[in-house]
C-alpha cells in the first residue's frame, strides 16, 4: 500500500514538472510588470469611447503627433519638425525617422491624416479644429500639411490633447473605420504591442515591448519625451475586489495598483514594501448636474440656491475619505491649472448661507415638485455625492429622493429626456478627470447648446458666445481673460456645480522605480528590479 502511495506521489510530481511548459519558464526569465488597472479594458477603440481605461490602453499601443508636458507646453512627439506660416493658416508637419507600425509598415502622412480625421469626428476640440480646417494634404510620405480657413490658436493643443479622446495615430486602413463603430485591430506605433491572443476580458490584458519603437531623446514628461520601455512585458491584472487587490499588492503578486480607494490608503501606507503616492497633479472633479428640461432646476434661481448651500468640504470627505486626498475647488476649470480661477465664485466659496438658499428657492416659485436624484451605488464617488446632496436638499426643505441603481442604469437613464415621473431625472452626479476640465474647449459639461449639449441639455447662447470668444484668444493673457468671462457667466447660469477636487493615490512596490508624475498612469520609463 505504502509503495503504491509513493509511486502515486512520484507520478504527481513528475506530471507537475512535465506540465510546466517552456513558455512559462520563458515568462519567468522576462521582466514582467504586473499592473492592477483602474477598470477592466472592454473596448479597444480610444476614439469611439471616452472611457479612461481605453485611453490608457491607447497610450500603450499608439503614439501621438504632439504631446503635452508637465508645464502644459505642447511638445512634438511623432513629429520631428513643424512649421507654421506667418498668417497662422498653414501648418506643415514632418514625421520622425524610423516610425513603424506594429505590423512593420512605416507610419505615413496618409495614416496621420486619416487618424486625425476620425478623431475630429468624435472629439469636441477635434470638431472645432475640423470647423476651422480647409484641408489636410500629404506632401510626401513623411510630410503633410494642414490648411485652415481661419486661424485656430488651439491647433497644436488639440493635436496634443492628453485625455479622452486622444488623437492617436493608427494605420490608414483602420482609421477609415466609421468613428461610431469600434475597431478591434490594435495595430499602432506606440511603445507596447497588444497581445490579443492572451487577452481575457474581465481578467488580463497583456502587452509586450515594441522593440522597433524609436523613443525621443528628451526625458519623459507626461505624454511627451522619450517613451523608453524598461520591461519586457506588462500584464494588466483586473482585480474587481479592492481588498483582494490590496492583498495581491502586499503579497507581491502585483507590482503597481493604479488607483486605490480611500479606505485602503492607511493599510497600504503602513507596509514598508509599498509606496503610496499621489502621482496625479490634477486629480478629478466631482460635480452635480441638473436637468434643464424640467422643473425645478429649469429655473436658474433653484440652481443658484444650491451654490449658497453646498459645502465642498463635506463632499471632499465623502469622496476622498481624508482631507489630504482632496480639496474644495471653486473654479469651473481644473484647480491648479492655468485657467483656474475664483472669479465670481463667492456664492460657492463664501460662508454657507442656507437662509439665502431658501430665499432663492422661494423666489423660484418652487411648488414642492419631487426632485429625483439618480444614483449608482456601484460607483462610490457617485453614491457619496448623491447621499450628500439628498441630505442637503432635505435640509433646504425640498421634496427630494434618491433612486438608486447601478452605473449602467444611471448612464442610460440620464439620456432620458422625459420628466422624472416618466423615467427621467432632475440631478445626477459624476466625476471628470482634471485634464478634461482644464479649459472651455474640453470642458464639455459647461456647454449650453441645448439639444446638442451634454445630458441635462442646458441652453445658454451667452455662454456659447463667450466660449467661442475664448477660442479666438491669441495669447495667454487674453485666453485667461476670456476663460474668466466664461466662468463668470457659468456662475450666473450654473450649468453644473463642482463639488470637490480629489485624488486617488497610486500604490506600488519598492522594486518599482521611474513612475512618471502625470494625470495618467504611463507605463514607459518604469523599471522593475
Amino acid at each position, binding site marked *: 500500500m505504502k509503495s503504491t502511495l509513493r509511486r502515486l506521489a512520484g507520478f504527481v510530481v513528475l506530471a507537475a514538472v512535465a506540465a510546466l511548459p517552456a513558455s512559462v519558464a520563458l515568462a519567468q526569465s522576462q521582466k514582467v510588470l504586473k499592473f492592477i488597472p483602474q477598470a477592466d479594458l472592454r473596448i479597444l477603440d480610444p476614439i469611439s469611447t471616452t472611457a479612461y481605461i481605453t485611453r490608457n490602453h491607447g497610450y500603450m499601443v499608439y503614439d501621438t503627433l504632439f504631446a503635452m508636458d508637465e508645464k502644459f507646453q505642447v511638445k512634438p512627439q511623432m513629429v520631428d519638425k513643424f512649421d507654421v506660416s506667418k498668417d497662422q493658416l498653414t501648418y506643415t508637419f514632418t514625421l520622425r525617422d524610423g516610425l513603424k507600425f506594429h505590423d512593420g509598415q512605416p507610419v505615413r502622412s496618409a495614416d496621420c491624416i486619416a487618424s486625425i480625421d476620425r478623431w475630429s469626428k468624435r472629439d469636441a476640440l477635434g470638431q472645432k479644429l475640423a470647423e476651422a480646417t480647409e484641408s489636410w494634404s500629404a506632401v510626401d510620405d513623411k510630410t503633410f500639411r494642414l490648411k485652415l480657413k481661419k486661424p485656430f490658436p488651439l491647433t497644436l493643443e488639440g493635436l496634443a490633447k492628453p485625455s479622452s479622446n486622444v488623437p492617436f495615430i493608427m494605420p490608414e486602413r483602420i482609421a477609415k473605420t466609421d468613428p461610431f463603430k469600434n475597431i478591434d485591430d490594435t495595430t499602432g506605433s506606440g511603445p507596447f504591442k497588444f497581445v490579443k491572443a492572451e487577452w481575457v476580458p*474581465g481578467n488580463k490584458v497583456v502587452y509586450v515591448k515594441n522593440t522597433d519603437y524609436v523613443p525621443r531623446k528628451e526625458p519623459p514628461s507626461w505624454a511627451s519625451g522619450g517613451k523608453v520601455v524598461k520591461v519586457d512585458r506588462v500584464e494588466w491584472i483586473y482585480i*474587481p475586489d479592492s481588498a483582494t487587490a490590496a492583498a495581491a499588492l502586499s503579497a507581491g503578486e502585483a507590482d503597481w495598483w493604479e488607483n486605490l480607494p480611500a479606505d485602503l490608503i492607511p493599510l497600504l501606507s503602513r507596509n514598508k514594501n509599498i509606496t503610496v503616492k499621489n502621482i496625479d497633479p490634477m486629480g478629478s472633479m466631482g460635480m452635480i448636474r441638473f436637468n434643464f428640461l424640467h422643473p425645478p432646476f429649469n429655473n436658474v434661481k433653484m440652481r443658484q440656491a444650491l451654490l449658497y448651500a453646498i459645502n465642498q468640504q463635506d463632499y471632499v470627505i465623502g469622496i476622498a475619505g481624508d482631507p489630504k486626498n482632496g480639496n474644495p475647488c471653486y473654479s469651473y476649470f481644473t484647480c491648479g491649472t492655468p485657467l483656474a480661477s475664483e472669479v465670481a465664485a463667492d456664492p460657492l466659496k463664501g460662508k454657507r448661507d442656507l437662509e439665502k438658499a431658501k430665499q432663492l428657492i422661494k423666489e423660484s416659485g418652487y411648488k414642492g415638485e419631487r426632485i429625483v436624484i439618480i444614483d449608482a451605488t456601484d460607483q462610490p464617488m457617485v453614491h457619496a455625492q448623491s447621499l450628500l446632496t439628498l441630505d442637503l436638499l432635505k435640509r433646504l426643505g425640498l421634496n427630494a429622493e434618491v433612486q438608486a441603481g447601478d452605473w449602467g442604469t444611471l*448612464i442610460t437613464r440620464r439620456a432620458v429626456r422625459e420628466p422624472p415621473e416618466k423615467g427621467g431625472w432632475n440631478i445626477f452626479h459624476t466625476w471628470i478627470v482634471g485634464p478634461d476640465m482644464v479649459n472651455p474647449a474640453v470642458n464639455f459639461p459647461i456647454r449650453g447648446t441645448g439639444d446638442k449639449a451634454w445630458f441635462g441639455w442646458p441652453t445658454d447662447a451667452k455662454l456659447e458666445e463667450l466660449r467661442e470668444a475664448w477660442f479666438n484668444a491669441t495669447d495667454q493673457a487674453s485666453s485667461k481673460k476670456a476663460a474668466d468671462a466664461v466662468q463668470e457667466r457659468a456662475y450666473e447660469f450654473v450649468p453644473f456645480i463642482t463639488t470637490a477636487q480629489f485624488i486617488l493615490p497610486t500604490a506600488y512596490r519598492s522594486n518599482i522605480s521611474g513612475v512618471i508624475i502625470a494625470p495618467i498612469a504611463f507605463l514607459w520609463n518604469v523599471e522593475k528590479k
Partner: protein
Amino acid sequence: MFAYVVRRLFATIVVMAVVAFFVFSLLYLTPGDPAAVIAGDAATSDDIRRIRANLGLDEPFLVRFGGWVWGLLHGDLGTSIFTNLPVTRLIAQRVEPTVALTLCTLLVAVAVAVPLGVIAAARVGTWIDRSVMAFSVLGFSVPVFVLAYILILTFSIELDWLPVQGYRNFDEGVWEWLRHLILPSIALGTVYMALIARITRATMLDVLAQDYVRTAQAKGLAPHSVLVGHALKNAAVPIMTIVGIGIALLISGAIVTETVFAIPGIGRLTVDAILRRDYPIIQGVILIFSATYVLINLAVDLSYMLFDPRIRY
C-alpha cells in the same frame, strides 16, 4: 432507459427554447443601454443614438430576436458588443476555471462532508455528533466572502503559502493550477460541506433505525460494514440529489468566490456582462447554464439506478 434518456434530452431542447425566449424578452425590457456605456461619460445623446444604430440595437424586438435565433441555429452565440470577441470564445475562456473550481470544491466537500455525516450519525448524541453539527451551523453562517478574506489573510499574507488571487490553466503546471484552487475551493465548499454533512447525518439516522440494519448488526457484521456497506448505500439517493443540486448551485454560487479571488470564470463573466448590458454574453451564458442544469439533473436521476436497483427507467 435509452428511450428515457432520449425523451429527457428532447425536453432539454424545449426547456432551452423557452429559456432563450424569456431571457431575450427580459433583457429587451431591462433598463440599460450598452451604447451609452460604450460612448462614455462625455458622449451626447446624439453620439449614443448613432452607436446604437451601428450596433443594431434600435431594431424592433422581433428582428433582433429572429437574428439571434438564426445565429443560434448555426451554432453562433453572437459577438460581445464591447470586446467584439465571439461569445463562444469568451465562454470557452471561462469554462475551465469554473469547472475546475466546481470540481475541486465538490471533491473537497464530498470527501469531508460524507464521512463527517456518517460518523455523526453513528455517534449520535455524543460530542462528535455535536461537533459536526456545530461545524455545520458555522459553515452555513459564515458568508463566503468573509471566509475568503480570512483564508487570504492567513494563508497568503501571513504564512505566504498560497496565492491571493488568480487562476492558472492546467497546462501551466499541475501544482500551479492546484495551489490557485485550494483557497477558493475551501471558501466556496464550506457551505456545501455543511449542507452535505447535515443531509448525510439525517438520512443515515433514518436508515440506521430500519429493521434490516438491526438484522445486519444481529448477524454480527462489523460496524464498519453495516455503516458503509448497508446503511450508506441506502442513504445515497438523497445525498446524490443534494450533490446534484449542489453542482448547479456551485456554478452560480461561484460568482462571489470568483470575484474575491479574481478567478476569470463564468460567474464573473456573467456579472460583468450584466453590469455593462452586454446582451449577447448574458444570453449565451444563461443558455449554457440552463443546459447544464438540465443535464446535471438527468445525470443525477440516472445515478439513482446505481444505488437503488429498484429504480428503473
